């Protein structure tokens, strides 16, 4: 593929909040609070004049009603001038990575050169919604004019109407298939014969790798610590989902949560529910050079793909080949790979599908398997099973972690990819700069 420094997007720098378990230390922070923090840190730490940013693009899967275009709210609060536009993008789990792809596409289309991008999710603040019956009750009450009508409307109240709709559960359920995300993971596991032991082993390794990275201070490089409402009195600098003492036995004791009788997916081998945000400053390679900035990595290829929502976990397998093609490299050229750990079953499923010639022929229209993905290249610092999966923040974190790790190990090619609820996959190919 031809390289063009005016059209290739360089990741100049990025930071994230620590990822903290939902209803934990970050629960008082709204999504905009988290995003404001990472935006401001990126601006302060790079010293890049915010007025030169062409657009702010932020992924968020569940913005609060009070800050529907959370990108704009956070950009203004972080001191980005009012003249710089901002958009919130949403592609479920890939929303954070979508911001990067959106920036790359704008750059190629000639719509701007510098972008502040990222992803944020405050899963603590996913709301409880009023049930339909309660809404109806209030509507009737509101319309009732006479005293009699009002009393009649009041008499229509039933306590059972108070049962709320839980946004987080509904959000993680696929409306076209009626399956919860965990069920789709069970489907993938059954397709490739992945058993409970394999899943738990994988989960254990995720915790171990993350713990090691944390001890070695590798995450500290990418984390900008913060304080959170309501009291702002604690300095939050570390991801709190990593379990250094995790044992296989403890994982094995957990009960399956989705398919309670025959299933293998437990809370232990699935990603955690987490709050967090990540942001990056991106611009054309040429502009980075003009500004005297040394980028972390350059985006060489990206792709999105769709597949059957019932096995959405295999999304990365579908998105990776076109992304590699765009970058002009082979699967075997990849030095490091980040696949989001929505579920251990799904990561293992991707590994199996990548290596399967039959899957490639049946679903990807390829004559041979995509390639062998060795564990030593995959998720070397652990993943969402240990760190958590703040939905839209994850895509940005994967890219950030991958870029840092490529530089640290002095390696060249990296792939970050994730599966997307609703049956999609998204991938970016990074070249270390």
């Amino acid at each position, binding site marked *: 593929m031809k390289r063009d420094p005016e059209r290739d997007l360089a990741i100049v720098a990025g930071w994230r909040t620590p990822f903290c378990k939902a209803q934990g230390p970050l629960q008082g922070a709204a999504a905009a609070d988290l995003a*404001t923090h990472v935006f*401001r*840190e990126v601006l*302060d*730490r*790079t*010293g*890049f*004049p915010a007025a030169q940013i062409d657009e702010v693009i932020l992924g968020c899967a569940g913005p609060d009603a009070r800050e529907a275009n959370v990108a704009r709210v956070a950009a203004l*609060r*972080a*001191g980005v001038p009012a003249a710089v536009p901002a958009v919130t993008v949403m592609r479920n789990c890939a929303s954070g990575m979508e911001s990067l792809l959106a920036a790359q596409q704008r750059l190629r289309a000639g719509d701007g050169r510098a972008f502040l991008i990222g992803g944020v999710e405050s899963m603590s603040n996913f709301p409880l919604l009023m049930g339909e019956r309660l809404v109806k009750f209030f509507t009737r009450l509101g319309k009732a004019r006479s005293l009699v009508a009002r009393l009649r409307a009041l008499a229509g109240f039933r306590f059972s109407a108070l049962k709320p709709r839980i946004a987080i559960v509904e959000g993680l359920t696929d409306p076209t298939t009626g399956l919860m995300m965990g069920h789709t993971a069970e489907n993938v596991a059954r397709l490739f014969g992945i058993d409970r032991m394999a899943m738990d082993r994988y989960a254990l390794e995720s915790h171990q790798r993350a713990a090691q990275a944390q001890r070695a201070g590798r995450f500290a490089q990418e984390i*900008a*610590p913060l*304080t959170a*409402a309501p*009291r*702002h*009195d*604690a*300095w939050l*600098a570390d991801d709190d989902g990593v379990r250094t003492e995790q044992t296989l036995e403890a994982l094995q004791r957990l009960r399956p949560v989705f398919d309670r009788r025959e299933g293998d997916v437990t809370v232990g081998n699935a990603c955690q529910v987490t709050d967090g945000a990540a942001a990056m400053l991106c611009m054309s390679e040429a502009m980075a050079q003009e500004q005297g900035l040394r980028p972390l990595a350059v985006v060489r290829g990206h792709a999105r793909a769709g597949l059957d929502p019932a096995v959405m976990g295999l999304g990365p397998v579908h998105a990776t080949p076109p992304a590699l093609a765009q970058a002009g490299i082979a699967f075997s050229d990849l030095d490091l790979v980040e696949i989001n750990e929505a579920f251990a079953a799904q990561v293992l499923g991707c590994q199996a599908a990548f290596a399967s010639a039959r899957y490639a022929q049946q679903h990807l229209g390829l004559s041979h398997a995509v390639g062998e993905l060795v564990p030593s290249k995959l998720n070397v610092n652990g993943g969402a099973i240990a760190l958590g999966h703040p939905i839209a923040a994850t895509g940005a974190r994967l890219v950030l972690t991958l870029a840092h790790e490529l530089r640290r190990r002095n390696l060249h090619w990296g792939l970050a990819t994730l599966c997307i609820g609703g049956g999609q996959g998204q991938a970016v190919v990074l070249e270390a700069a």
Partner: protein
Amino acid sequence: MNDTTSQPRNDAPAPPSALVPCTVDADGIAEVRLGRPDETVVTLTRERILALADTFAALARDPRVRGVLIAGPCPGMFCAGADINLIAAIDTPAEGAAAAAQGRQTFQLLQQLKVPVVAAIEGPCVGGALELALFCDVRVASDHAATQIGLPEVKLGIVPGFGGTQNLARLVGLPTALDLILQGKLLKPKPALKQGLIDRLVPSPRLLQAARDELQKQIAKGRKHRRRRLRGAAFWLSKTPLRALAARAARKELGKGQARFYPAPKAALELCLQAFTLPPAQGFEAEAKALGEMIATPVSKGLTRLFFLTERSKKLGKGDGARNLTRTMVVGGGVMGAGIAGLLAQKGCPVRLCDVSGSALARARARLWQDLGKRLRRRNLERHEAQAILDRMATATEWGNLRGVDLWLEAVVEDLGVKQKLIAEAIARGLPEHALIATNTSSLPVDKMAANVPNPERVVGIHFFNPPEKMPLIEVIRGPRTSDAAIATACKLAVRLGKFPIVVKDAPGFLVNRCLAPYLNEAARLLVTGTDPEAIDQAMLDFGMPMGPCRLLDEIGYDVAAKVSDVMHKAFPERMVPNPLFAAMVAAKALGSKSGGGMFAVDGKGPGPGRKVLATLREQAGAGPTASRSELHTRLLYPMIDEAYRCLDEGIVASEQDLDLGLVMGIGFPPFLGGITPFATREGLQVIVTALDSLARTVDPRFAPADGLRRRAVQ
């Protein structure tokens, strides 16, 4: 329709004064401007009041006039009230009462007009200006940012004299009037509308049209006054004997603490009551008389002087080369650094507060959030504003990129080496050449910090006092190489932060700590030689200090006091010999309020753990008798006066005014005295020199006054 084509006024007396331009349009609306269009600040001088009297009299005779509109000279200015020079120049009660009556009678001409009068208020409408507006029939105000409405007279030690107490009390009721007048509160237009001071609030560009509409409404109704009745509690607490309740509550407040030194609020309270007990004419007379009495008091003279000093200080921010700072960085997240960063954020300046300790940064943020929470609960802040303030204060262990920073300020431990290293690091990290390098040191030479800075003219001391949010003074320290532009920029910042800057020379203790040293040192010695903390503190409270020296020591902390005392001793070995108390308190780990109490318990009530240390010291030294009131007065205050004049003679400050402002704002020297130099003059410099000489003979040579003081005493 609202163009102001002026028609020749044949029947007007001599050309209507240019001071208050007046035009009458075809509709018969007379528009009176309180000043010429080029006057951006309008005050009620004697001439302007005369001009207003002429104008109002002419309007009364003009048959074309159907309504009168009164407005300021230009957008953003109505009138800033009576001319302070006029207030300062009046020395006798009779003169004061006459001036008050004259002003009020001028405004009363408006009331006597047959046609309605509407005031269009935008910008300051304070003191005499509000009193003028109160004689109008309708008040319309704009939401301009500069709009402020109130009667701040008590802050100058006087009472409103142009009918303000009477009219305001009748307009808004006794409780609200007392609340506003006794504290001299100024209201923004929204609360002013809510409290009933104004009748209508409109967007700034529509002000004049809205005022004309109101005028037309009154004309159409054929009515002059707009009827307004007090309702609810305001009615019962004003128009019935129940008003005694409101008065009692207010009196109780005025008996507390230092309020006893200020007679004006008490006089204003009685006047507000008389608005409901006396017929208007008598009420106005009583008011004029009270103003006359107040204006001649030394308290008023002292406060007026202080007002001039503060205005003078604010002008320092407009010096040549003063730049506006847009991005700041504060290094050091301790009490001072956190307070300074919080203050910057509150005043709209983005700041990055850095410290190696995350927990210190969390404390800083928690503290700011708590303060904001208090303001939210008091409703003087809205949620999004609080959020914006917190957003402006970034806290991080990483300095980040210094490219856009134009003020870099350190507030780390008082260690020259550490400070120099940090400054070097800032420069190495690319702090822009134009950025100001500031230190919040209280004891180290600023010039030494500039030692290795390639362009040392930008190194300046900006000395905040603890707590920075509350203390009104900032010492801007000029090192020998500091440029005028850097000084002006630092002063401008101080003014933006709502503080009063004084420029001081780079010398040990600067001004405030140096003058405080003999005072606190002497208090400690008196303690050790047998005088009780209660007696010492009471003597100084009765003198007018906001806090006694022993309590102050508890608050400062004995560790800090010992450290400062060392610095001062090194600089002035004969005069500032350390006392034994500070070291003993530090040794006993009784550091003051921060460690569970010093001479007093932490809340200031009852004795604290430091008394044991004191008892031991007294045993060792063989304590003498308790000092008398007059001895306390002499020993505590006279050495401070001597030190202040030394500072003046050594050029630490440039003028007596700086001394006065610095000590009033820096240590709370009684404001009603107008500063330390008027106090010294009042005591008699010769008396002070004699007393110090005698102390030097009988107690210790350290009391010997400086030659400068002697020389002044002879003159």
